[in-house]
């Protein structure tokens, strides 16, 4: 393991701060790098900072598992994996260098490879959390298969800290692809969707597909032979690898626009409906980024009609940045929150006003 990396177990302080907060009924605002603080609703609470609790706890490349403390910078983890020729296949966005692995799991955001490789939660194997009763517990583990008890680790992913404070995570990792080719083709959106569908049926090794500004950008990853054959079939021009980083980190020119940014998550075969604003198609059709002044109701109406949902990626635009969920389902969310965080200390209101 690299020696230049900082490894500090500061869990005792985190547990202590949670216990004090419980005793005082003091809401906590959990933060790591604060790189995704713009998502959800601003939490009014005492700050609890995970960044001092950091470092790789264990990593053995042949096990395909890495375990790290929550405050470990994602960039550091990626560097370590990279040295061993491995990666987090879900390629989570950092939205700034400060992002921590705890925040990655809590936010559950995945990058361009998600439809083909899986999401952040798909790669979560285990976690340690400080609970709403102030206990420091361990769920899941460092093994690929584990069905003992409820899958608390994956429940934590994407829960924005509302169910407990993540202090450590174990993630499945995979070898980096042997070969990568990125291509760009001038295609209308509808034509691009048709092509993507035919490539899917032909099992081409696509690992990124984004339509922006009248061009389809495609990433191919796999063995040398399959990537070459797919590139020959697809044609188009060479595309710089950096495109995918720029897309993932919202650094494309498209994102430089004063209108609010919305994320639409849709079934991948959703027909292209006119969206009220400018849009790019990511995830081969399953994720659309929309720059729009339209109201939350209008945008959500479109997403819901297509059996999807919409999240506002800019604070202050709507009081409900995450799409409201049906009342019956919300009841079970609040019951879960009530049981796991009975004193309401963890990020109250971050996801929904109800919890």
């Amino acid at each position, binding site marked *: 393991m690299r020696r230049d990396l900082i490894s500090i177990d500061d869990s005792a302080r985190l547990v202590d701060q949670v216990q004090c907060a419980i005793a005082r009924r003091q809401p906590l605002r959990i933060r790591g790098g604060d790189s995704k603080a713009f998502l959800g609703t601003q939490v009014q609470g005492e700050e609890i900072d995970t960044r001092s609790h950091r470092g790789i706890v264990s990593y053995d490349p*042949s*096990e*395909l598992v890495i375990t790290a403390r929550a405050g470990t910078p994602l960039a550091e983890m990626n560097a370590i994996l990279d040295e061993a020729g491995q990666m987090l296949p879900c390629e989570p966005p950092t939205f700034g260098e400060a992002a921590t692995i705890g925040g990655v799991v809590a936010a*559950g955001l995945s990058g361009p490879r998600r439809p083909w490789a899986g999401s952040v939660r*798909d790669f979560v194997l285990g976690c340690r959390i400080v609970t709403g*009763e102030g*206990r420091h*517990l*361990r*769920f899941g*583990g*460092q*093994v*690929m*298969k*584990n*069905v*003992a*008890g*409820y*899958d*608390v680790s*994956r*429940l934590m*992913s*994407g*829960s924005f800290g*509302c*169910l407990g404070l993540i202090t450590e995570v174990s993630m499945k990792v*995979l*070898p980096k692809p042997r070969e990568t080719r990125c291509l760009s083709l001038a295609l209308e959106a509808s034509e691009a969707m048709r092509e993507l569908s035919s490539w899917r*049926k*032909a*099992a081409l090794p696509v690992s990124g597909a984004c339509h922006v500004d009248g061009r389809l950008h495609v990433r191919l990853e*796999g*063995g*040398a*032979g*399959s990537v*070459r*054959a797919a590139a020959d079939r697809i044609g188009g021009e060479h595309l710089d690898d950096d495109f995918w980083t720029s897309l993932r980190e919202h650094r494309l020119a498209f994102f430089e626009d004063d209108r609010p940014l919305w994320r639409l*998550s849709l*079934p*991948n*075969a959703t027909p292209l409906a006119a969206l009220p604003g400018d849009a790019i198609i990511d995830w081969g059709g*399953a994720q659309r980024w929309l720059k729009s002044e339209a109201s939350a109701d209008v945008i959500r109406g479109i997403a819901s009609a297509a*059996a*999807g*949902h919409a999240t506002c990626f800019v604070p202050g635009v709507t009081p409900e940045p*995450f799409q*409201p*969920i049906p009342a*019956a*389902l919300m009841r*079970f*969310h609040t*019951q*879960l929150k009530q*049981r*796991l965080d009975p004193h309401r200390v963890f990020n109250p209101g971050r996801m929904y006003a109800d919890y």
Partner: protein
Amino acid sequence: MSYAYDEKLDGPLRDHDKARIVRDLRALLPDLQLLHAQEDLRPFECDGLSAYRITPMLVALPDTIDEVQALLKYANAHDIPVVARGAGTGLSGGALPLEKGILLVMARFSRILEVDAEAGIARVQPGVRNLAISQAAAPHGLYYAPDPSSQIACSIGGNVAENAGGVHCLKYGLTVHNILRVEIVTIDGERLTLGSEALDAPGFDLLALITGSEGMLGVVVEVTVKLLTKPQSAKVLLASFDDIEKAGNAVAQIIAAGVIPGGLEMMDNLAIRAAEDFIHAGYPVDAEALLLCEVDGAESDVEEDCARVEALLRTAGATDIRLAANEAERQRFWAGRKNAFPAVGRISPDYYCMDGTIPRRELSRVLRGIADLSAQYGLRVANVFHAGDGNMHPLILFDANAAGEMDRAEAIGARILELCVEAGGSITGEHGVGREKINQMCAQFNSDELTFFHAVKAAFDPSGLLNPGKNVPTLHRCAEFGSMHVHHGALPHPELERF
């Protein structure tokens, strides 16, 4: 332990007037088929763990989701426990009935509602068999990836409840990675949609939570699964080793070299000989260990990976390496492995299958530990191993009719699971806790962690009416059974392949 529900350890259950319940339900749901005569109940007294048998108070066989909702609402209002059951192939007694409970059999929900080849999804009822989904998708060149050994019989609702795996998990994931949406009915009769046809849904990831929850949180009434394009090509290599540790190292080297095989299986000498004797797969009977490594994908990548794996196996000290020359030989190589359980069943009157998982690096140590225990208890143990993902299936050979052997088999099984937990693994990789491993949960989790699980349960089922006595032990039970204590289980459905 006695496997029967124990009110002193598992919590009190209310006594019910069965005749009144039947009367009420007939009035409430005139079309619902109910079984209540003793002879009609018998076929439902066990699931795949047939050593555990309890006759349910009554069996309900609903046809519609409305009936499921109404039945659960009624049960909730009257404090009647409900155990949901799919095809009943589970190996941990997860669908073991309760004498004081209703067994809710979902077998009639057996329709494939939709296969959408364009979207790559299938929407199915929970009683649809796992293999039937792949069969329905096959005309489109698609399949459903998780392939538990019982896939010709097990149902997708049960797969969701158990987070079922199979031999291709390392590359293609478990059930949780291959479903998009489930509909459940909660104990208070609420119908909820978890997940969506999109790749995520707003709110908590309750889809992940419900997967593998063993029928404790809700009853699955519909499932939307992802379908994958069939790999163009698949090749399998069979490697022999004169030392099981060398085989374990070979596995680590294959993975470290960046190859993720579609399947990577290991067998020890006892398992090899039993399988060869039964199937005549051409296995090396003198080898201490055998590795089966299947690589799949695009033709050219498969060629490349095969060459790479072969070189690695040679460096790792394989004494013989064979590439299946054709599809028939590939099938034969796999047939030996897939029939390892029944093969072991031929060389021993009884055997007991374990399901522990370990980090792969611990393999040699755990296998040595198992060998020591085998000598100490005087019982043979055959090892088959999903080497790619660390899931061990030690098979303990014993004779239930020989005095004391069953007790020894239970004891050694408990010690093996302890070894797995000590090595940083889990008591169950894919078979579930059910009733069978309820006491071993006390070894894997401390009382705070178990309390947390109970809190999750209470958020969905505060009265504890769904599948009581399964999956998560009461703290009282753990206090009583602080040490490991594993019970005998025989493998039913001998006609099914077991991985």
